């Protein structure tokens, strides 16, 4: 499909740099689906780390949402599109005799509902995450089965939290119980993932280049076969592995020749990680909106910060690291700064929701067609509690949800019940998602 770049007026200028980041223009784009009835439901998860100041999060009453206050206040413009869900739990985030390491467990168990095997080595073991359960079934309908985005450069090895591998604290999505799907944190890499590395080349030049690539691979196949003839058993097997890989890449090149989103010339790729965090957040979420709008994928996850993140937010005057602040031991100054960080994240998320709301899809909007979770695997970051988690579900899921309410569940209700409900909405019906006990009642209209 072609994405036209009629209006290039949308640029973001960074403070003081003098160079610009130009982003494809969401407004001028032709959406993938002309009628809402054809449009599929999109699923997304936003994870914020180190817990949230819950005193300023939970709405006072159950039921229809009044004007939101505290950390949820930035979401007032979209208050009728969100559900605030209280009392959800990640049981497998708890220590359960494994000792310290709540951050590794919190992120690891959030989307998987599984116990995190405590290791700092390579023998990771977790479970398959909810988004990948969906991607397994629905992924073949889109060019990318799913999209993992993050705002911190991912580490995959080493000891990041008291004996838990960095793979556990940096990854939200898990393809299998041993294989995480690392998020893309580099704007340019994300762009290239969506549009291809040579997407800004004119189509004719790109086609020519792909054909050359195939010729090269053809020659390699020929050379390798001739080479194998002269070799013994184990040598041939080694080259067999090589041959198989070359053929696989050749197949991918062939696919890329016929398929692939082509972008009009003049569209510039983004350029490095923006210095200011809000700009970085906006840039990456703009591309997520784009991915949904162009139906490049329907499933996405975003790690706003890895668990245990020590990022400071000088843009709002918080120069201390996030994680140390959340171990405030009751200190009011530190608590106030934690709240500021929570509010910043909520503000940026609300902006994202508004962008989705302003993106039309037939007679509906992209937000109406989505189910987006915003939450964390920790509630009180100071004492590391894994229940009564902050959770917001945004969007209507294509007329599935009646938002604008605060629902309080019984305690210990697994957060994976929410994910199971979302999966059922998109027609994926596993028995369970991790430790789910059933669907969440009260979420859907029916």
């Amino acid at each position, binding site marked *: 499909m072609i994405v036209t770049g009629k209006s290039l007026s949308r640029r973001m200028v960074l*403070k*003081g*740099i*003098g*160079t610009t980041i130009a982003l494809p223009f969401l407004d001028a784009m032709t959406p993938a689906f002309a009628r809402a009835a054809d449009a599929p439901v999109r699923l997304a998860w936003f994870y914020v780390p180190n817990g949230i100041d819950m005193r300023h999060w939970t709405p006072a009453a159950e039921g229809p949402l009044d004007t939101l206050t505290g950390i949820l206040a930035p979401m007032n413009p979209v208050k009728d599109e969100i559900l605030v869900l209280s009392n959800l739990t990640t049981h497998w985030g708890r220590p359960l005799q494994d000792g310290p390491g709540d951050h590794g467990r919190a992120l690891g168990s959030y989307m998987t509902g599984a116990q995190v095997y405590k290791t700092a080595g390579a023998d990771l073991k977790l479970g398959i995450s909810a988004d990948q359960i969906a991607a397994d079934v629905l992924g073949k309908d889109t060019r990318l089965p799913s999209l993992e985005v993050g705002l911190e*450069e991912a580490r995959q090895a*080493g*000891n*990041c939290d008291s004996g838990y591998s960095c793979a556990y604290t940096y990854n939200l999505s898990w393809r299998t119980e041993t294989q995480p799907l690392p998020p893309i944190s580099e704007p*340019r890499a994300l762009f290239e993932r969506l549009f291809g*590395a040579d997407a*800004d080349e004119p189509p004719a030049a790109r086609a*020519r280049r792909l*054909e*050359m*690539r195939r*010729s*090269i*691979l053809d*020659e*390699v196949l*020929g*050379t*390798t*076969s001739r*080479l*194998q*003839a*002269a*070799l*013994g*058993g*184990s*040598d*041939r097997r*080694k*080259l*067999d*592995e*090589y*041959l198989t*890989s*070359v*053929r*696989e*890449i050749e197949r*991918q090149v062939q696919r890329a020749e016929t398929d692939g989103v082509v972008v009009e010339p003049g569209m*510039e*790729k*983004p*350029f*490095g*990680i923006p*210095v200011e965090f809000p700009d970085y957040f906006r840039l990456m979420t703009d591309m997520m909106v784009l991915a949904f709008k162009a139906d490049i994928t329907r499933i996405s996850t975003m790690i706003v910060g890895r668990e245990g993140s020590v990022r400071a937010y*000088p843009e*709002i*005057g*918080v*120069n201390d690291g996030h994680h140390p602040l959340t171990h405030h031991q009751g200190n009011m100054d530190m608590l106030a700064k934690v709240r*500021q960080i929570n509010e910043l994240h909520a503000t940026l998320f609300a902006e994202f929701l508004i962008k989705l709301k302003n993106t039309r899809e037939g007679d509906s909007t992209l937000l109406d067609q989505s189910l987006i979770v915003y939450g964390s695997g920790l509630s009180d970051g100071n004492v590391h509690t894994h229940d009564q988690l902050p959770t917001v579900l945004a969007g209507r899921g294509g007329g599935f949800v009646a938002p604008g309410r605060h629902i309080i569940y019984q305690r210990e209700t697994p957060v994976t019940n929410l994910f199971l409900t979302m999966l059922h909405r998109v027609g994926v019906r596993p028995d369970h998602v991790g430790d789910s006990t059933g669907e969440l009642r009260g979420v859907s209209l029916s």
Partner: protein
Amino acid sequence: MRVPAATALALLLGVLAARPAGQQAPPAPAFDRDVRPILDEVCTRCHNERKANAGLNFNTFMDPATLETRRDTWELVVDKVKSGDMPPVDEDPLSVQERAAMVAYLEGAFARADREMKPDPGHVPVHRLTRVEYANTIRDLLGVDFRATDEFPPDDSGYGFDNIGDVLTVSPALMQRYLSAAERIAARAIGGGPLPSPGVFTRRSRVRKIADGAIELKDVLEYDADYTVRVGVTGHRGPDDPPVTMAISVDGQAIETVTVPVQLSAVNKQGGATQRALYEARVFLPGNEHTFRAAFVDDTTLASIPVKSRGDVGQNIFPEFIEVAGPFKPAQPHVVRKAALICDPASGTLCAHRILASLARRAYRRPVTPADLAPLNRVYAKAAAKGYRPLERLQFAVAALLVSPNFLFRVEKNPLPGTIARVTDVELASRLSYFLWSSMPDEELLRLAEANRLHQPGVLSAQVTRMLADPKSLALADNFASQWLGTRTLDGVTRDQTKFPEWNADLREAMKTETRLFFDAVVRGNRPISDFIDGNYTFLNARLARHYGIAGIDGPDFRRVELKTDERSGVFTQASVLTVSSYPTRTSVVLRGKYLLETVLNAPPPPPPADVPPLDEKGIGVAVSHRAQLEQHRADALCASCHNKLDPLGFGLENYDAVGRWRTKDGPFAIDATGTFPGGRTFSTPAELKALLRSHMPQFTRALAERMLTYALGRGVEPFDRPVVKDLVARTTADGYRIQAMIQGIVASVPFQDRRGERKSAVQETKRQ
């Protein structure tokens, strides 16, 4: 004599009758006299079917034929009986004569078996280049710096090294990377392709602070083009402080000097500095690794700011990050000579073929045939047909070269199945260069190989000497030493930030560099390998010297330092080794003991039993000393059989904390570094421990020889390599334990020079598609 004569006779006859045909069994009476009775009466008390301690049942070892089939276990038996570990002290001890007789018999049997063994060079399957080897080869072939560690996933390891032929594979994901890397490298080497759209490809995580007010970034730029160097400065000084001058330089040359006002940010109402000043400088740079620095010059105000506050944005101003954006089309044309272009491609196809032929010979590391060149020339022709310009066509052909199996794999001809043949000289050249340089053979080596003179002993040893003297042999320190000593894992190590606040990326890099330079010095100076145990010199910069408490070293660069105290010597008390053998929060006596046992004494301990109770970590250093807690290991004779060897070695290193600093106390407890080697000799300081280790040179030499042989061959050491290892040890010992003797010995050995042929698989040649 424990066995009645009649039984002995019967046994003798029985054993003689059971001797396998064609095999010279050791004289049976000696086995029945010196070994069997001991097995029967002493060993099988614990090592029998029911109570198989350590999984051993000696009832199945009564037949002398097992000396060959279960050789490894018998070697273990010799070790344990010789050192007095077995039988355990609370069982019936053996008399000195009984012990000596048993050991003598067994060792004699081993020696006989080794002598009769046919030399077997083993077989390594076609050997893919590791990512380090790939990067080095690209550098030497095309003069292009390519950071393979960023682009390619880590290689799988086997036997402790990542260059094991059997283990290295090419997955589709890796193939994709090879293809994309080949295209980019070809574009850089030929310089014909279009510049990609600009971006920021340098990583902020690479920026290092080298002094107060000075930061540095070392990274690779891919294209010859204009680049914008951007420096971010943040912070705030007093209103009366003068502005400060900052110099931005590339590779030591200043490209821009700016004046930075010191009130960068209006301090906002939350008390934070929210803005940064960004400075840019535009410069043309050829694609390769460059060093970028941003440093304040003549910063007189700095002295008046206390050291603690120098990182505080409210009190001081400092450069925060450097990044490089590009590539941009050069404002002025620059000509960057490309080494690969030995003639002008614009002149025609003939020139292109010449260039490709010369590159192929060096890339495939052997003389090339028309069959080798045909695919490359076809790619060139196809590109021409599609309308590409000459330089671009050449780029495609070079990319094809770089994904050819002839480049990515070291291919060696297969001798007839089951036979042994010498590898050809060109194959030998590759083995040699990848062993010593982790890279391709250079012109001299290749010419000698093509002239079929390389294998001549005099020529070969002279080449080894030359190659070791070449700066490229630093690869041995980078690749062999870092894996042998385990210091490569430093990249993934974390330390508890509250206990070790000084642990950061700078310290980690400094530790790695020290060990790297030390190993390189031993190789280059042909020092004895005992220097690893107690050589009294090392390489330090200011950061590391401060860490060690050694005064008088300034500046971020490393230089050789002669060590004057007993605290440090050799490699095993360098911070790198001490750090990788500790936990994030504390030292580990057991880990360090195991490390020394494996690396120095060539006696790796068996794994611990399954039901070991956990150590009470909270109490260490608080309620009771680490040492006192581990005394539990002595309580049980079974635990003690391993831990009597492990713990003393670890205790001997307790003076070094989990980041390798010297200490005399652990919390409130004074460090007690005394220990007893089994055999009775004691030590009470690390220096004395090293002296004792030093008396185990045969074991250390053997351990190092096996590791280095593994690395050189790209396969694990097998039983049939035993004579080779013995020979290496003998050679090295005879030359005063000098390391080059070992290296020369490896190069001259049968497994390095020969190759065993393999059967072709029963399945027919793999069909295409």
